């Protein structure tokens, strides 16, 4: 029998926090509150029992961030398709490339695949070369032999 932490008893067992709203139905399986609730071991919602580990916190932040970047990428693609001039399309693809570059770094943390950072460095340099190439074509109408 390990020693029992008296503070834990005071917070958890004696005064268990239960929410006033009804129990989480199956449709709220995807809410953050329900996810935190399922990770609670004692069905207690006091702050001491609800602490997330670092890994869960990072994964939660990444799953919140991803839709925002997805919407931004879709809007960049809209401008890339719609742009009346070539320079507009170039600018949109430039921004898209740097965005994907950051997103790969985030995915490297999420999937624990450290090689993706090398790919993101390579993409950033590619976007630079792309801009210079298009600028040279626009200025002199030559295709860079």
């Amino acid at each position, binding site marked *: 029998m390990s020693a029992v932490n008296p503070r834990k008893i005071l917070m958890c067992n004696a005064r268990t926090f239960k929410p006033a709203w009804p129990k989480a139905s199956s449709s709220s399986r995807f809410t953050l509150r329900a996810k935190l609730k399922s990770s609670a071991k004692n069905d207690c919602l006091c702050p001491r029992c609800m602490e997330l580990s*670092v*890994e869960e*916190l*990072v994964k939660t*932040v990444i799953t*919140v*961030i991803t839709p*925002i*970047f997805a*919407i*931004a*990428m879709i*809007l*960049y693609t*809209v*401008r890339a398709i*719609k742009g009346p*001039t070539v*320079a*507009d399309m*170039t*600018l*949109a693809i*430039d*921004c898209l490339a*740097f*965005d994907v*570059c*950051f997103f790969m*770094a*985030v995915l*490297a*943390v999420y999937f*624990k695949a*450290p090689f993706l*950072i*090398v790919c*993101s*460095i390579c993409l*950033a*340099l590619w*976007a*630079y070369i*792309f*801009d*210079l190439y*298009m*600028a*040279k*074509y*626009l*200025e002199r109408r030559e295709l860079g032999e």
Partner: protein
Amino acid sequence: MYIGMALVVIGALCDLIAAMGLVRFPNFFVRLHAATVGTIGGAVVPLFGVTLMTFACDFLGYWKWFLACGSFITAIIIMIVAPVGSHALARGAHRHGIPVEPKVCDFLEEDRRGKVR
């Protein structure tokens, strides 16, 4: 670690605003302003955030040093490279004659035509 997460969230919002600006602005040269926000606020600042965030991620083991320093280098590369690229693009586009509509004043065009200002 929390600073890193705050930087990532700020960068995501900056990127969304820049994307909305890129769609709605009327002109190529005005869209350059939105693209600046998109690359620097939307990719450099979040990469600094990822750097600070991965210093605290002990679940990665010893790969966290690789991820942190790699994303820091990527942030510095993008910080140097993106403005150079868009400057070159703007110069090429102006010389190519991309129309500046709606226009208030264009000093570069007047200078190139040799007008006395």
